[in-house]
């Protein structure tokens, strides 16, 4: 399989009062063609900043990609000019966001918000673009697309707006769709519909998906591969089956343990103790050590590196590094 997107040692820092805050600190990420990769982590782990870095939409100042490469289709998009990046955004890479209620422009019709992308990237005429927009709306499940196209977003519910966002994002047949917590703001029945829709569309158009979420239920449903982030770093990467069968990193284990199970008779829900430290106070050594039940002296002094295990998965933890070495 060839890689569509390869992020290498990405570092996105924010400057705050002359201090550099490492929101994303050396992330490696690979997405193959047609693959769905889930980026998982708690709030503040740097997953959204990673996705915005790929879109080159980091608010700058104060944010800046200080190091690393983002190879998309073999081109390093970190080095692209803003003009060239504009040709990729919305066309080759498009994005949907967490807040469907506020992500659409309230003063433009739904149709206009799809048509403008098509006219801009695909150089379609207004009438061709309009027909294509109706097609897209039907594709994302609106039965009366022709009437809807001249309506304004405030008439739609959150789930419907997210469908419109998907229609916008998919209208140019992007190679990569980045979905930043696309279902977090929606209720559960709608979540499933939206996820199915995304899976469906990506299969039809061979689009790769990078889905950002903290919901492992979503991960198990859509992802082929999972990348777990903690404190701006990747701590574990594995196929979805491997990860759910045998999580290696204590953080991943903790995340899994926090899912309430249907058959278990548990009084209290398990939670990882403590909170994610803010980027300006990342601990020395392993960043998870202060919250880790298995931490030993080495974890608090030395920074573990991401090591490959069993050829296909990798983890950033001394527990496994040593095991592998002794085996």
């Amino acid at each position, binding site marked *: 399989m060839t890689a569509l997107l390869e992020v290498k040692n990405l570092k996105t820092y924010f400057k705050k009062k002359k201090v550099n805050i490492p929101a994303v600190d050396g992330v490696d990420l690979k997405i193959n063609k047609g693959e769905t990769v889930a980026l998982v982590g708690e709030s503040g782990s740097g997953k959204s900043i990673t996705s915005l870095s790929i*879109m080159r*939409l980091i608010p700058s100042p104060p944010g800046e990609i200080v190091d690393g490469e983002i190879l998309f289709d073999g081109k390093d998009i970190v080095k692209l000019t*803003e*003009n060239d*990046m*504009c*040709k*990729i*955004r*919305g*066309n080759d890479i*498009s*994005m949907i*966001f967490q*807040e469907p209620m*506020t*992500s*659409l*422009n*309230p*003063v*433009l*019709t739904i149709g206009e918000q799809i048509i*403008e*992308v098509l006219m*801009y*990237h695909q150089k379609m005429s207004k009438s061709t673009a309009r027909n294509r927009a109706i097609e897209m709306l039907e594709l994302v499940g609106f039965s009366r697309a022709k009437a809807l196209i001249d309506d*304004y977003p*405030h008439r739609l519910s959150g789930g419907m707006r997210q469908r419109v*966002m998907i229609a*916008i994002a998919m209208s140019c047949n992007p190679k990569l769709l980045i979905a930043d917590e696309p279902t977090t703001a929606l209720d559960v029945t709608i979540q499933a519909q939206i996820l199915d829709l995304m899976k469906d569309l990506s299969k039809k158009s061979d689009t790769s998906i990078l889905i950002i979420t903290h919901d492992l239920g979503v991960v198990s449903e859509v992802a082929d591969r999972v990348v777990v982030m903690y404190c701006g770093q990747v701590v574990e990467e594995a196929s979805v089956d491997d990860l759910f069968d045998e999580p290696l990193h204590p953080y991943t284990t903790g995340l899994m343990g926090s899912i309430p199970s249907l058959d278990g008779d548990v009084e209290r829900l398990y939670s990882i103790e403590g909170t994610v430290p803010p980027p300006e106070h990342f601990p020395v050594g392993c960043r998870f050590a202060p919250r880790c039940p298995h931490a030993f002296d080495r974890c608090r002094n030395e920074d573990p590196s991401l090591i490959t295990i069993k050829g296909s998965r990798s983890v950033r933890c001394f527990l496994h590094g040593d095991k592998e070495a002794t085996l």
Partner: protein
Amino acid sequence: MVSYIFRRTLMAIPLLLGITILSFAIIKAAPGGPVAMLMDPKMKASDREKFEEKYGLNDPVYVQYFKWLGNMAKGDFGESLIKRGTPVSELILNRLPNTLLLMTVSFLLAVLIAIPIGIYSAMRPYSPLDYTFTVGSFLGVATPNFWFGLILIMFFSVTLGWFPTGGVATLNAPFSLWDRIHHLILPALVLATADLAALTRYTRSSMLDVLKQDYIRTAKSKGFKEKKVVIKHGIRNGMIPIITLFGLMLPSFIGGAAITEKVFAWPGLGQLFIDSAFQRDYPVIMALTVISAVFVVIGNLLADILYAIFDPRIEY
């Protein structure tokens, strides 16, 4: 929409009546009267009474009010007490075009300069140019119109001689467009500065707010360049709060220019208003008050209609 406008217009009637009652009461409560302004102090008391009798100034205030109201309902604003024999409507109509011209030009000037500056400031907040505009607009708000006008007259008219010191046109000269513009520049500039400064600040803060919204991020993620994002997705949203300001500015078209008109000897309604107030020329004062009140109502109505045009979420 049409029924909404109709309902709003009906609702304006009691409002306007209330305004006339209040202003009538207040102006009558002020000491002095037109007779004191006009009469020779040596004049006999009987003559004075005759005058007051003739113009109904001795009637009880409510009788005077209803008489005035009845006439106004027929479209008759009465005669000026000071310039006897001149109908109030004639006085006003003579000056209305001057004021409207001055106000429209200065308003357009303010809007055309303020909105681009405000938008730029919002796009590059805390940049050196933004700070410059900020300081400039605070100066603009803080500078009193009459002082700024006098300084401009001193510098550009007296010292440099580039512009006339006042008036709408050169006296006794045939009409010439250039002459009119020449006379208009300084007073329009002075009037524009205050509005300009306030509008710049409002536009900046409104646009700053809009540019942080999620749909702007969506527009960026579509690959549009900054300019297109701001123009297509930002401005229309950013203008919605500014519409309120436009609605509030409209009534000032009638009386707002009083001081500037005085400084530049601009024969407009503002000057007329000040003069009549000092001379207790009741019919003129009341007529101008009613017109201003009507403008307030129209301004609010226009703002509400514009809201509905700019913001599809609003329906009437």
